[in-house]
């Protein structure tokens, strides 16, 4: 398993897609933090959510994971991958763990960058900064969330082999379907795996996030439900992968 994990991490590091998307994730986090820190005048109570909750790693690792596994079919590298790892369940498990680990690393990189920039700007402006304990808890939850969505993305990519369909699908669900559901039928929308549950799992105050009307779940419940989604996606993806022929 360690060998396969190492191979998956090398795969990730040696393509431009990963480097580009990771760069965009860090850049976007810094930009949002700079804007909110420079333009806002937040109190001690809401500065955490307003300025320091700009870790976009969970979304980007989700996209990267979907691209990573569906790319195996697109570029037909699935053949050499399965020749190296003929146990398809182990192959999928290694990919899942790899994207979870990389998700944590990406999340921590963004969190540290965002925190450093946010503190610097707020100190210069002589505005209140959040408690370190709250910040560490937020970034810990963000790292866990990135790990979970990395794993979820692998499951989705294993189910939907077409890279375009998979990526467009998760974008549509994340930015259109789930927000609409959360607004129109919140009792259903709050169980959504790509918007509601990830937002809840960060543990931020729903009111500060503008979601007080949605009746969001407790962060721990949301995390457990997200795990259930991941388990279901992994099981479905594994069943499909094991049954598929890898033809030329």
């Amino acid at each position, binding site marked *: 398993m360690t*060998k396969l994990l190492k*191979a998956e991490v*090398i795969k990730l590091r*040696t393509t431009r897609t990963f480097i580009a998307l990771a760069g965009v994730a860090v850049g976007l986090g810094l930009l949002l933090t700079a804007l909110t820190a420079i333009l806002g005048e937040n109190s001690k109570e809401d500065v955490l959510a307003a300025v320091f909750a700009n870790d976009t790693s969970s979304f980007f690792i989700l996209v990267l994971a979907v691209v990573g596994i569906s790319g195996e079919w697109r570029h037909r590298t699935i053949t050499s991958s399965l020749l190296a790892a*003929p146990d398809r369940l182990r192959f999928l498990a290694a990919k899942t763990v790899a994207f979870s680990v990389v998700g944590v690393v990406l999340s921590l990189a963004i969190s540290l960058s965002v925190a450093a920039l946010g503190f610097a700007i707020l100190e210069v402006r002589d505005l209140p900064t959040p408690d370190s304990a709250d910040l560490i808890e937020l970034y810990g939850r963000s790292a866990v969330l990135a790990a979970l969505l990395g794993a979820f993305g692998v499951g989705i990519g294993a189910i939907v082999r077409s890279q375009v369909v998979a990526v467009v699908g998760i974008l549509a669900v994340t930015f259109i379907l789930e927000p609409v559901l959360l607004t129109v039928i919140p009792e259903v929308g709050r169980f959504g795996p790509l918007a509601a549950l990830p937002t809840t799992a960060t543990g931020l105050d729903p009111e500060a996030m503008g979601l007080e009307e949605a009746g969001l779940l407790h962060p721990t419940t949301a995390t457990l439900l997200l795990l259930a989604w991941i388990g279901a996606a992994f099981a479905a993806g594994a069943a499909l992968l094991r049954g598929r022929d890898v033809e*030329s």
Partner: protein
Amino acid sequence: MSRRAPRLSLADMPAIEINDLSRSFGSVHAVRDLSFTVSAGRVTGFLGPNGAGKSTTLRMLLGLVHPDAGVGTFDGRRYEELERPSTHVGAVLEEASFHPGRSGRNHLRVLAAAGGHPDGRVDEVLELVELNGAADRRVKGYSMGMRQRLAIAAALLGEPAVLILDEPANGLDPPGIRWVRDLLRAEAARGRAVLVSSHLLSEVALSVDDVVVIAKGALRANGTLDEVLGGTDGSVTRVRSGERERLAGLLQEAGTIPTDEGADALVVQGISPEDVGALAARHGIALRELAPLSRSLEDAFLELTAEAA
């Protein structure tokens, strides 16, 4: 560069054994009850026209396509059952399997990591396939020949006892084809079992020891190159005699099939020149000509596959 001897098969066990392998896609029988073996230290040509079922057979052997029935094994174990499969089997399949944005070296690093091979082995195989100079270029800039060399490098990473190559000469220029041919011979000489599929018969004739011919998914011939060139039922002999009709009768009684070729000549399938000579001598028949006839592999192939058409 160090190259260890590959792990050899047990003496009484073929390196590859395919037993009653079958697979259908809808109403199309891609492979039907196919059985044959491949021995260590020999190059076995796996021949058939396009669509004969060669690639499907190889992919079933490698666990990529699920068979409806039958099994393919390496030293008695299915591919999925091999521990560190790259140390047992190296495969070059027809379809290129590279991420275009990854360099050749990084492609090999991924496979080396998955197989538990040291990074130094990557440099060794790159040197072996003469790709060192282009190793850090992205694969999308590689020519067909360079991609084929990279695929062969990947197959050799684990110094496997078995090499499987699906149409390795496709898209190669003449020097590239010669390079592949020399590589196959060299690897067999090192004790590896080499199974190479092709529809380029002239190419295969120069590099194989044994031949397996399939058409429409079914086995048509299996044996050494000489056996298959000799005919579907053995040797072919041309003989001339003033007592052609008497000789033809004796040959028929011996269970062979003589064909009248005119000018006192007969062509006889299923008997060697030595046996024809002995038969004629026993019956006091004088011969004017006695010679083995070798069909080209092309002729044998066309004859064998035409029977299935």
